[in-house]
């Protein structure tokens, strides 16, 4: 399906989206049939505190034929709440329609924190204080599609085998605690919600790497970069693949094949002497990947949207991985 069709449908759905968050089925902190979850590697959104819920239709299963690209049943719903400074700002909502397209909506919390109402289809720029002089944007429907719609996979991000691995990663930047009652891979298997269920119960979903730091680095890149940088969209990814596939052996990840020692595709801000490398093993200062992560200029920054503050904790992790771990295996 062409994205344009999805967006057109999204527009129609936008008109049909419930006017209030409560009408989507999330009331207060819970709702019937809802489960909370927390990905092992959270997406950075300028330090927003997030809570997430999922609702699968009764008796339906997720098609897990491709372990790295689950397909969700019609009627699946997701919610993600964003808070800054202890105040809820917005809750995003996705619902899979019977025709396989997704409805996207964002709900904006009121001053009293008692109700969230549907945001305009074009979103709201500079809506809330996100700290460090940055204002948080409520995304428009087209903004949602930039990340969620892509060839070769369903629209859900952050709810897959790698992100729901039962074993948490203590080095994952901004890791969120796994709380009692949350859903993870083991819980999905136990509930019979995956078809086929992984033979190992999901143990291989844990990222296997050559060092604990490399595991966390690959997980961060998977969550924050792998949405676009994956082989299903060769042109848009520019051949830089940062998504982790469940069960990959240590040292064999696509990121390790497509980044270290490979020339960067465009000039890199602040790097003298030409384009530089995507990753220069041992030299994070001359690695385009780091330069892009440290930039928040609209023409240079990565990710290109959804963040206006540099993720310093993640930059420190990636810098240390490049400086200290990679030289041991890359000349």
């Amino acid at each position, binding site marked *: 399906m062409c994205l344009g069709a999805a*967006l057109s449908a999204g527009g129609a759905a936008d008109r049909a989206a419930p006017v209030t968050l409560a009408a989507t089925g999330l009331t207060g902190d819970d709702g019937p049939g809802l489960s909370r979850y927390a990905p092992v590697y959270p997406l950075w959104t300028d330090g927003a505190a997030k809570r997430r819920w999922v609702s699968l239709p009764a008796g339906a299963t997720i098609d897990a034929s491709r372990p790295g690209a689950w397909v969700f049943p019609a009627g699946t719903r997701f919610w993600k709440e964003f808070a800054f400074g202890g105040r809820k700002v917005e809750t995003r909502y996705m619902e899979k329609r019977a025709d396989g397209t997704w409805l996207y909506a964002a709900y904006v919390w009121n001053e009293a924190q008692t109700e969230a109402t549907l945001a305009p289809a074009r979103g709201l720029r500079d809506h809330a204080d996100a700290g460090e002089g940055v204002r948080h944007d409520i995304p428009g429907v*087209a903004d949602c599609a930039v990340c969620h719609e892509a060839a070769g996979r369903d629209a859900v991000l952050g709810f897959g085998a790698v992100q729901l691995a039962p074993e948490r990663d203590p080095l994952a930047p901004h890791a969120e605690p796994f709380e009692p009652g949350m859903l993870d891979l083991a819980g999905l298997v136990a509930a019979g919600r995956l078809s086929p269920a992984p033979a190992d119960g999901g143990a291989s979903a844990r990222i296997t790497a050559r060092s604990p730091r490399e595991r966390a680095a690959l997980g961060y890149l998977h969550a924050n970069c792998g949405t*676009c940088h994956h082989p299903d969209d060769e042109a848009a990814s520019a051949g830089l693949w940062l998504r982790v596939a469940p069960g990959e052996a240590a040292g064999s990840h696509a990121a390790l094949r497509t980044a270290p020692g490979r020339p960067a595709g465009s000039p890199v801000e602040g790097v003298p002497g030409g384009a530089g490398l995507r990753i220069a093993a041992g030299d994070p200062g001359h690695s385009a990947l780091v330069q892009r992560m440290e930039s928040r200029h609209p023409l240079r920054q990565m990710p290109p949207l959804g963040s206006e503050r540099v993720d310093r904790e993640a930059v420190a992790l990636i810098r240390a991985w490049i400086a200290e771990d990679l030289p041991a295996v890359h000349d």
Partner: protein
Amino acid sequence: MKMGIAVLALAGLGAAPAAAADDAAQSRIERGKYLVLTSGCADCHTAHKLGPNGPQPDETMAYAGHPESMVLPPAPKLPPGPWLFTGTGTMTAWSGPWGTSFSANLTPDKETGIGTWTEENFVQALRTGRHMGKGRPILPPMPLLPLSHATDDHIEDMYAYFMSLTPIKNKVPAPLPPAQ
């Protein structure tokens, strides 16, 4: 003989749908050409040369974007006042508060044009205003607002037309941030 006639008849049956598909593809290209011409895409995506009748499109560079061979000095800094942006005589490079932008190569060259773009990439770029629908913002003076009113079918027709062009190898520079 009868067998021969039967074979010919079957071949004819097979050819009809293929011919219809070719006609449909050609119609899309023709519609796309009409839309591209009337939307003025060539105004910026084809380099212009100054001739006796003023700026004329250089057809040898049709839709190939800013000429790779034209290396520009830094854009002039404008004094405070109502003048906001400047452009080159080729009409392929523009400088303003957003930085310096260079018109893209829309020919189907796989290395420097849109040859590797899918139809979805193309539609997504115009819908989201982002490079390939995912990356950096597409910069002024790209007329994203009027194009946002185009239907998916029309954008797909324009893509079909661009992909039917002769590929031109011309690597357009990446946009530059505003001078500090």
